[in-house]
């Protein structure tokens, strides 16, 4: 029976659901639960990782380091992880202080085509004796060949695990099969998958990833993550068991906590709303949901028009500023017809 490592980013990706305002008490309480339930890794921080608290994406009421210090104090067995995206977080300002606090796992991420910006950061983390993952976000924007060659770069830099993120929630199970197979054929490190539920497929995609050889799955309690949410923790555990994969997590505690979190951390659990379906189809970062709604209201636009135009501009994660700019400029072109966006459903490149 193969054991699958579950990484729980509820306290990181979930920050997208609450405009990056998860409070320190929730961090403490959830970490205590995670430790007792034997969740192997939990990821903590701003939705876009270390150094991402900003006017661009959303400011946190406290620093990354306050959040990590609280988490560290409440974890014994469970490893403490962070996401860091070069361009937002730097070694000097963010990674070294996180090492000092006692973070165990650094998941160093870039847009799917930009792996080489992660080299120094991955090398640094490894040299400090910490665990480094290479992560490619927005992976549905590249074909399998590009994905594999970028992932191989991360392996060369020293990443011990490669994680593919479906940040846009665009993949079909067949896309996962194709990509995980290719990654297994070409990489010798462990493979992980991080799903989003924009098309209702996060669980199915995570299962398929495991069936084709992924050893790590990201899952959040109540799916607490950007947009339509992530692979749901309390569902994926029994589903994997049904297919003969072990997670070694205390399922009973997870089920109890999935009710409890509605009173502190989660409050509003993510659902697949119409806007999430559109951002998924048009391959936009799941975390853009709230900025898109805000900009549409501000400039009196239909969110669908804004989504189609943002899809045309092929925004990457971290470009919330351009949502405002595009909305402002759409407003100046009131007679333009965006209804063709409805007939054009882009697919992941094969």
């Amino acid at each position, binding site marked *: 029976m193969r054991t699958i490592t579950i990484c729980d980013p509820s306290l990181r990706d979930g920050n997208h659901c609450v405009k990056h305002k998860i409070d320190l008490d929730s961090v403490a309480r959830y970490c205590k639960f995670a430790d007792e339930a034997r969740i192997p890794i939990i990821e903590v921080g701003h939705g876009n990782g270390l150094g991402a608290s*900003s*006017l*661009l994406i959303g400011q946190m009421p406290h620093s990354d380091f306050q959040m990590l210090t609280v988490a560290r104090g409440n974890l014994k067995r469970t490893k403490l992880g962070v996401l860091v995206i*070069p*361009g*937002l977080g*730097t*070694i*000097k*300002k963010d990674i070294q202080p996180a090492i000092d606090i006692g973070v165990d796992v650094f998941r160093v991420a870039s*847009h799917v*085509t*930009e792996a*080489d*910006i992660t*080299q*120094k950061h991955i090398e640094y983390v490894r040299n400090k004796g910490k665990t480094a993952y290479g992560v490619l976000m927005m992976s549905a*924007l590249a074909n399998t060949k590009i994905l594999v060659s970028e992932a191989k770069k991360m392996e060369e830099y020293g990443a011990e695990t490669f994680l593919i993120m479906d940040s846009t929630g665009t993949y079909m199970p067949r896309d996962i099969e194709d990509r995980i197979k290719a990654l297994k054929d070409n990489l010798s490190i462990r493979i992980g998958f991080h799903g989003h539920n924009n098309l209702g497929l996060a669980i199915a995609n995570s299962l398929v990833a495991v069936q084709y050889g992924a050893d790590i799955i990201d899952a959040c309690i109540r799916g607490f993550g950007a947009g339509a949410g992530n692979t749901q923790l309390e569902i994926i555990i029994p589903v994997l068991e049904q297919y003969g994969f072990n997670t070694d997590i205390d399922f009973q505690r997870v089920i109890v906590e999935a009710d409890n979190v509605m009173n502190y951390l989660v409050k509003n659990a993510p659902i697949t709303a119409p806007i999430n379906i559109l951002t998924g189809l048009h391959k936009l970062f799941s975390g853009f949901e709230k900025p898109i709604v805000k900009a549409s209201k501000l400039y009196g636009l239909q969110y669908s028009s804004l989504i189609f135009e943002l899809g045309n*501009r*092929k*925004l*990457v994660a*971290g*470009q919330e*500023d*351009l949502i*405002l*700019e595009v909305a*402002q*400029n759409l407003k100046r072109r009131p007679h333009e017809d965006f209804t063709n966006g409805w007939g054009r459903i882009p697919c992941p490149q094969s």
Partner: protein
Amino acid sequence: MKITAGIIGTGNIGTDLLVKILKSKSIDFAAFVGRRSDSDGIRKANSMGVNTSINGIDYFVANPKVDIVFDCTDAFTAQRNWTIFQNLGIKVIDLTPAKIGPMCIPIINRDVIITNNNVNMVTCGGQASIPLLNLISICCIDLKYIEIVSQISSKSAGIATRVNIDHYIHTTEDAIRNFTNCKTCKVILNLNPAEPCVDMQTTMFVQAEEIDFGKLQESLNDRIKLVRQYVPNYELVMMPVINEDGTLILGVRVKGAGDYLPSYAGNLDIINCAALNVAERLTA
């Protein structure tokens, strides 16, 4: 007065700068100096009939009769080159992040080239945002926080930029603090691989105790016109707005002139335009 200038470093930046210098009426071009005979830059320069050398810094030791050299190598090499240029009495405009001399944004302090023998051109994000941030700092009482976000096309980011992305962030943050007196600032860089390539775009967020929006609007166009004198394709792409929590937001787009690099590489173009403008100060 005419000056004589050379370039060391024959990569994308150096080659684009060469094309720009050859158009300048006040600069006599001395030599385009690299280390590899097979570089695209050297080939391009030879095809234009420019004096080239692959002897690196040794060329200038043997031929020291130049007033100024543009260093387009990398931070490490620029540091080594500087010890030699200093002895030769040659002024250096440094386009690497070596941060040897004072930082320079032409419309704010191009005169530093007169009193200093080494001047640093900061970064593309710095050259794009600081002319406006400096103006904004004049229109604000108690500037509390500045944040800038730049988008550049993946193809315009060379390997040095990619591997040293932290360096870009730290240098740009230092420069913003230096030219605005705002103590807290944050710089974010996004590489976007979309095809056709995206233009360089920089969005600025500013928070202050009080912002004189009327004064800013009055003087913004004049400031942009000043920048356009040396960066012709510099334009306001997002009009200044103040959002619900009092944050001022505005954005610029920088298209390149398409001299050697394609026009989407506005990030490389703007630093070259700025460097040339500073050198021309010596001819005025």
